[in-house]
């Protein structure tokens, strides 16, 4: 416990008859990145809201650096930074004014907040736009300012709720670098994401949430090893052939192949090697697929493997950006 920055025990939250969190346990070691992975509606945002003292849990307990988020909420607020899913910055203020306001409200000295605002604008590539009102910013710029605002008081524990949703690839990588840098100086980061890749790149530990429960809690490499990190998809001519191919692959390679309509899906560690073997086998049986695709496993694949159900989420980042990804 002593080394945990965030400690969650049997935490539940119900909204009327809806159970958003159903008794989750989490342990986040200080100075690490913890990824909370899950589709929309899994309870990620509810968990963040409870940990940042915005919501009260229905039952269970949560501590940040040893302080109870309900009983010692005021202390916890002095230890955390939050960047939410919505770019929570004032559109009528300039970027610089937004950061200075947060500095003022988090008790940073006048000189301190001036310097901090300049520094953060620079680091987030907003130096040139610092004196424009946020109303004129693009979505990605607002998002970066939102994360910058969370960093103003140099919080030892940082909560990022889907921080890269809506960011272009360059900004996404820049933010990842910044998170790594923060963690190297001792900050603890809890981030939620819908992207397996993001959790894999950043987090030393990942919990997968589904319908308010933790269905996996492991380090990402172990998770991928258990679930396979590449997916082969074979589109067959019809469902009958697909069913035959599925049986054959399962028998020959003692590996589960799954069929969805005329698509056969195989998850493995060795995508290209297995692909050759599978194609040989199918060719011998005159079952050549119409199309073949090999890709990295997505959150949906993880869900399929863990729960046997699809994540019911859009795992295409592009589509996600358009819908804004609220949950």
């Amino acid at each position, binding site marked *: 416990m002593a080394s945990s*920055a965030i400690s969650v025990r049997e935490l539940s939250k119900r909204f009327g008859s809806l159970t958003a969190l159903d008794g989750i346990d989490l342990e986040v070691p200080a100075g690490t990145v913890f990824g909370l992975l899950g589709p929309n509606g899994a309870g990620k945002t509810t968990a963040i809201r409870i940990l940042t003292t915005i919501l009260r849990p229905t039952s269970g307990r949560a501590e940040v*650096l040893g302080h109870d988020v309900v009983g010692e909420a005021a202390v916890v607020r002095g230890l955390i930074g939050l960047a939410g899913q919505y770019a929570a910055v*004032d559109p009528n203020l300039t970027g610089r004014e937004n950061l200075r306001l947060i500095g003022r409200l*988090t008790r940073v000295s006048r000189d301190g907040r001036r310097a901090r605002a300049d520094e953060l604008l620079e680091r987030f590539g907003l130096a040139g736009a610092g004196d424009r009102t946020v109303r004129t910013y693009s979505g990605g710029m607002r998002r970066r300012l939102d994360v910058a605002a969370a960093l103003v008081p140099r919080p030892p524990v940082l909560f990022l709720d889907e921080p890269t949703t809506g960011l272009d690839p360059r900004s996404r990588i820049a933010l990842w670098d910044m998170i790594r840098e923060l963690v190297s100086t001792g900050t603890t980061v809890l981030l939620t994401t819908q992207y397996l890749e993001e959790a894999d790149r950043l987090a030393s530990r990942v919990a997968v949430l589904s319908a308010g429960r933790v269905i996996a809690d492991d380090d990402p490499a172990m998770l991928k090893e258990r679930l396979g990190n590449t997916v082969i998809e074979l589109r067959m001519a019809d469902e009958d052939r697909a069913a035959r191919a599925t049986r054959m692959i399962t028998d020959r390679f003692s590996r589960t192949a799954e069929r969805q309509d005329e698509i056969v899906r195989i998850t493995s560690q060795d995508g290209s090697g297995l692909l050759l073997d599978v194609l040989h086998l199918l060719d011998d049986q005159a079952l050549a697929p119409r199309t073949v695709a090999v890709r990295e496993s997505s959150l949906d694949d993880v869900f399929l493997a863990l729960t046997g159900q699809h994540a019911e989420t859009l795992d295409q980042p592009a589509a996600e950006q358009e819908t804004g990804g609220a949950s």
Partner: protein
Amino acid sequence: MTAGQAAVGRPTGGVRESLAAPVRDGLAVAGRNLIGLVRVPRLLVFSTIQPLVFVLMFRYVFGGVIGRSVIGVPYVDYLMPGIFIQTAVFGAMNTAIGLATDMQTGLMERFRSLPMARSAVLSGRTLADLARNVFVVALMTGMGFAVGFRLHAGVPAFLAAVLLVLAFGFAMSWIFAVVGLAVGDPETAQAAAFPLLVPLVFASAAFIPVRTMPGWLQAFADHQPVSRSAQAVRDLVLGTPAATDVWLALAWDAGIVAVFAPLGVWLYRRAV
């Protein structure tokens, strides 16, 4: 375990801190709201035009019917105190809309995760709306003088009247802060505020003497806060005995703030 806390070194307690924080944080938020007011001038312009239109409408539409014979003074002198109060009430709608907007944009959620005073988001909004009222009342006074409004009791009494108007506007802001937090989105806030405003303003002594109303309505109109404040302001402007009405008006203001400020803070702590 406390290493993280010590490293941050932000004060979290102390009597002085706990007394100063609400004021300091409230002023910080008020400053932020006022910047918004100046940067989006169309909001200020339109919320100023409306009371000016009311001055002209009432002055020239009703001014002919409601003459000296009914109320003993030129109607414009009777009207202006009512219009001031009406403006303070309608202006309070901005408090509801502003807070609801902050809830909708997620800014409220950020504020609630910060170690700032729990009252600051609300007091910052009501203070900014108070500053806005100072500006609007000054403009209306100018407009009033242009259409024939005259002071009967001198400038000091008029300044006292203006302070009463501002105090009433501030009290109404707290009522509408609660409305804004309760509904949580700006369109609904506006829709919810309007039916509350209209009976308060029109079933009152703001524009006409209540004695012409039916008995049941008179009972309400005579005792509700809009009437009391309008009458107190009118007494001060016309030079009629004012003490009782002024005290009643101030008692209403204090009572409203005493009830609605804690209610608002309670809602703020629960709002998402």
